[in-house]
């Protein structure tokens, strides 16, 4: 409540710009470490502490205070809580933090089910900012592709298609991501959600959803592969394959436009396993039908630096500073994408588990 009173007291932007925002991270796995690094790089943010219930993991945190429970961390008086926990735990943490008037940055997916994100949204108020980690929007190739699409120089979007997959690997069977009670779904919910978010980023909403899944390789309670086909009222179609059996890690998004095409391929990541991040831009060339070669001139841009983590948090901080609604990776975006996933699972005969 003290933090709320302080925020309400700000009269102009310059006052707000002076404040260093106090941050906590709950969950110190892969994403928790990344978020900690972003916080520590930002001149606007200060890391107050990290909550990690696992004692072994907690003991390897050095350089900041640690807490066993989120309540202890929240009691320190945070401005922002970064929620980096398994899907089943995220909704209650988001809700609890927002009820305490703490801004929340939550990793994707926003819970296990559509009901989870609806519960989170019900706790959202104009006084707190809530953003989700749909980080791929902020990757440099995607940002550039979006600029080109929005410029209109290649015409309108006809459709999009994508492939996003990984190979699983050692420890995959034991991962909480494959425990349906914790995750709520498989590769579609874990990775495919990024692809769906990008499809929405380029095209807007999709009203019709078809999906096939299979789980024949890993034989776990969640899907190994999902094949999703989408259509919207603007006449655009989309298709993607989300996979945990792509032995070569792959990320590709193709945007088909009236006057050309864009291909985002590879992804800058900590492991580098998805290959160099590139954007190919091609412009349609019509030749005579009999001599058509379908091989137009292309521009290929290689991106070697990933600022996406910092950019998305900077956007979140901007929304706090300027007291404006979050409109990129917002709870609305999270809800819309979870609606698609909910429809996809139902279409594939995999109804979601009860979130409660």
């Amino acid at each position, binding site marked *: 409540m003290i933090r709320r009173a302080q925020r309400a007291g700000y009269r102009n932007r310059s006052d707000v710009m002076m404040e260093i925002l106090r941050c906590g991270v709950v969950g110190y796995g892969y994403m928790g470490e990344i978020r900690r690094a972003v916080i520590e790089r930002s001149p606007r943010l200060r890391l107050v502490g990290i909550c990690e219930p696992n004692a072994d993991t907690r003991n390897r945190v050095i350089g900041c205070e640690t807490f066993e429970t989120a309540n202890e961390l929240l009691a320190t008086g945070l401005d922002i809580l970064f929620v980096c926990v398994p899907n089943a735990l995220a909704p209650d943490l988001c809700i609890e933090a927002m009820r305490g008037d703490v801004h929340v940055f939550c990793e994707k997916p926003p819970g296990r089910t559509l009901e989870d994100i609806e519960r989170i949204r019900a706790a959202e108020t104009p006084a707190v900012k809530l953003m989700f980690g749909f980080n791929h929007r902020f990757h*440099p190739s995607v*940002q*550039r592709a979006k*600029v*080109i699409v*929005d*410029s209109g*120089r290649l015409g309108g979007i006809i459709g999009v298609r994508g492939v996003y997959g990984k190979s699983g690997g050692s420890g995959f069977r034991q991962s909480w991501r494959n425990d349906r009670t914790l995750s709520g779904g498989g590769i579609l919910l874990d990775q495919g959600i990024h692809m769906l978010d990008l499809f929405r980023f380029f095209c807007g909403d999709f009203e019709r959803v078809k999906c096939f899944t299979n789980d024949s390789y890993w034989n776990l309670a969640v899907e190994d592969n999902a094949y999703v086909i989408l259509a919207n009222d603007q006449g655009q179609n989309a298709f993607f394959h989300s996979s945990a059996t792509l032995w070569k890690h792959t990320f590709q998004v193709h945007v088909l436009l009236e006057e050309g095409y864009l291909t985002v391929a590879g992804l800058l990541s900590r492991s580098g396993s998805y290959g160099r991040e590139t954007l190919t831009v091609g412009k349609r060339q019509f030749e005579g039908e009999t001599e058509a070669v379908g091989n137009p*001139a*292309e*521009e*290929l*841009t*290689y*991106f*070697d*630096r990933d600022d996406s983590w910092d950019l998305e948090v900077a956007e979140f901080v901007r929304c706090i500073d300027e007291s404006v609604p979050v409109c990129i990776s917002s709870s609305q975006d999270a809800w819309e994408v979870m609606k698609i996933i909910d429809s996809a699972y139902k279409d594939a005969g995999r109804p979601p588990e009860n979130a409660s």
Partner: protein
Amino acid sequence: MRHMVFYEEIDESEVRPAGLLEEYAALSRSEVERLILGGELEDVTCPACGSHKRETAFDRFGLTYRQCRDCLSLYASPRPPESTIYDYYRNSAAELFWHKAMFPATREARLDRIASARATWVCESARELLPNARRFLDIGCHQDGFLREVARTGFFEDIVTVNPLVEVADELPVSVVADRGCVEPLPRADVVSLLESVDRAADVGRLIQGVVNALPAGGLCFVTTTLGSGFDIQALWGDSPIIFPPDRLNLLTVEGWEALASGAGLEIIEFSTPGLFDVEIVRRHREAVRGGLPRFLDYLVGGRDRQVRGEFQQFLQKSRLSSHGRILLRRR
């Protein structure tokens, strides 16, 4: 840092017709003798890294080119002062020929292949990296087609050029704040372009510092340039047909640009070498001279087919080894 590779086949003659290029070279040679060699010349250190250590590389039109031992950049020294270069571009028959003969003969290809592509690069990059940019400042671009294309995008509210080189048409929707090559201080701007301007600057350090002073933190500077580290220049060296003083007094290497940017407080966002003509330039030289190339280069450009040469050109682009450079800098 990012970099771009361009997969397209363009015949060099579309933008540099051989006969016209030779005439331009001949005019440049005689005008350099008439307007530059008789006047004051100043010895300079490496324009990229400031090093005094250098070797003599070759002479061109009576000017001596040196190679920096530290960053390997090529530069003419001694060289004419800025006022002489300004007078050259206002008065030389070579420059007049460029605007009255070369540019009209290649106008369509240059607008389509060069001016429009550069304007797209500038405006899309600015929209991505500095979406609130309002004022665009061009310094010394060689053709008004580029400014017209930038204006046509409607991205910038205000376009300013500082330029002794073009006769800016009345209908061109830009402001001309001065017709001299060097205005100090430069007008403030969010985005600056230096299209081949560094290549012909008498004092590179002063030009870059002027740009830095004109930009806010986060402001962008777009550069196109000829690189001394590029394939055709390294292969042909003093025989390179594209080294003309004063158009190319400074041929910085990739390493030279990195040193220059770092020293000026500029971050390199993009460093591409999307050149298309390196291999073709070397091939034409081989045909004309019949010999003189190292054995492998001779075989590569003379003994292999167009597809292999094209793929080698793409390798040069990917490896930042073409002589045509495009660089995007951001003020820290």
